[in-house]
């Protein structure tokens, strides 16, 4: 496959946007990406649109891609809808990279767009998100993704020495990052004490330790081969150094339990073993990391499964400041899912957006610096939710971006 680079990214601010339609959110992200790339919009020849809940929220189950992209002014290109929970946008990006890397298409657009905020009806937002679970043996019996995440934490806190104070520290860190991000859902910083004092959602999690369900947004990325970028005079890189997707393998009933109890993180080690090898880098080389922190403890667990530290050392790594802006490997520099926001079908592309903006040195007051320059090696970790019979995730994703020196 040819080397693929990101030539443009765009994003609509995340938040409650009751007066805006999906298409209103999408056109901002798409045109921002086009202008960022500096290309003629008519050159885009394939588009993947990630969206999970339009069918529940607006009733538009099918034809989501044309219903959204048609109003951006684009036409004549294949418009492909991708759903699949919290990994949908990463899958859209993956497909766009494959399409152009294979030589079949020239410029690929990956768009994530989602509306989850339902004015005056938070239970409806939760019900929409629940459709990412298997219906009969999970959703219809009251399982919720947030509770499923919380369930595994008791054991992890015992075995790894984590405390609720550690979760508050993750939250306060990411909220501080988001306070410098004008596109974030929640831009007010919060203290660790305030996080701990907030209402409990499901023990041990308080409200700010969880991404909110009622949030809307859009994010987009444009990709092509390095050769095409040169021909078009488009903005350079970073390049996609490696990407890998997989689902949770079946585990026999009598097998030793080696899962973490947090489904989003159970396959990360295997996925990153693959992308580290392909990109010829290791966890020590990462200079920026975007983690799937739908709840704060996922960030701690990610440190270990990504190889940044040994099991049990997660809280110490956090306390050392290594993962804050200014640290060795800042994580969630845009605020993460916790604060930048987590409209489900957009999240992966928001993570990619942040990696690209940071690597280009255009993150403003929240810019990460390494030896006086922007990060050159960045990773994105993302996973889709699915509870039910096969308890595990449909897609666990790992991406590594690399900005080559001029």
């Amino acid at each position, binding site marked *: 496959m040819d080397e693929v680079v990101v030539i443009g990214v765009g994003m609509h601010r995340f938040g409650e946007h009751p007066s805006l339609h999906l298409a209103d959110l999408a056109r901002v992200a798409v045109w921002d990406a086009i202008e960022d790339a500096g290309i003629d919009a008519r050159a885009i020849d394939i588009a993947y649109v990630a969206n999970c809940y339009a069918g529940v929220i607006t009733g538009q189950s099918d034809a989501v891609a044309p219903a959204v992209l048609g109003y951006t002014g684009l036409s004549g290109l294949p418009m492909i809808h991708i759903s699949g929970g919290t990994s949908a946008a990463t899958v859209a990006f993956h497909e766009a990279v494959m399409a152009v890397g294979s030589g079949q298409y020239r410029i690929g657009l990956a768009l994530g767009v989602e509306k989850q905020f339902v004015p005056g009806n938070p239970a409806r937002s939760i019900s929409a998100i629940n459709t990412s679970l298997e219906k009969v043996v999970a959703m219809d019996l009251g399982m919720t993704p947030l509770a499923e995440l919380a369930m*595994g934490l008791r054991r992890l806190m015992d075995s790894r020495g984590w405390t609720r104070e550690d979760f508050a520290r993750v939250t306060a860190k990411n909220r501080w990052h988001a306070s410098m991000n004008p596109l974030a859902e929640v831009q007010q910083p919060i203290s660790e004490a305030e996080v701990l004092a907030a209402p409990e959602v499901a023990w041990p999690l308080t409200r700010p330790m969880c991404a909110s369900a009622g949030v809307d947004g859009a994010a987009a990325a444009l990709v092509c081969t390095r050769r095409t970028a040169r021909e078009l005079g488009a903005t350079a890189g970073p390049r996609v150094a490696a990407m890998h997707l997989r689902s949770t393998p079946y585990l026999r009933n009598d097998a030793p339990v080696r899962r973490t109890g947090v489904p989003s993180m159970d396959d990360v080690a295997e996925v990153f073993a693959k992308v580290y090898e392909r990109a010829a880098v290791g966890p020590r080389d990462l200079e920026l990391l975007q983690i799937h922190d739908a709840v704060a403890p996922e960030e701690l667990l990610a440190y270990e499964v990504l190889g940044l530290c040994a099991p049990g050392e997660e809280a110490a790594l956090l306390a050392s400041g290594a993962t804050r802006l200014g640290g060795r490997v800042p994580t969630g520099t845009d605020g993460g899912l916790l604060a930048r926001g987590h409209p489900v079908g957009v999240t992966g592309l928001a993570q990619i957006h942040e990696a690209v903006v940071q690597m280009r040195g255009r993150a403003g007051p929240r810019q990460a610096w390494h030896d006086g320059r922007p990060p050159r090696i960045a990773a994105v970790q993302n996973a889709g939710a699915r509870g039910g019979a096969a308890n595990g995730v449909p897609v666990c994703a790992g991406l590594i971006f690399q900005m080559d020196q001029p």
Partner: protein
Amino acid sequence: MSAAQRPVAEGLFEPADSADGLPWLLGSGCVKCGEKVFPAMLDCPACVSRDSMRPVRLAGRGTLDRFVVARRGPSGFRAPYIQGFVRLDDGPTIYSLIDGCPVADDALTLGEALEMALVPVREEGDVTVIGWSFHPVVRRDG
């Protein structure tokens, strides 16, 4: 009190018909590798074989793998309530509502023995939807 009832789906469980009074979950067992799964399947996910699974009844008895008190729920569920995973004595680990104890974070111990009952899980208009829940062997409602 609604008159009409329906199961959450057909073919998932059967009422008690043995001395212990516990209802059954309807799963599958593989004739090639012996793995048991719930809900029922025809093809085995453990040895990945076609048409190797036969129906088996799984006893409504197990141990608590993990749980949480959900403070909020989707439409049709009255929060707070307890969600959990139960490791069935017959093999599979399954999602379940947990009741028969106070709805509190310290009401249950990981690994404790649980038994199953068929219960109303939510209302759908005039229809009561029946599913399963697990409870401590000796109920300890507050």
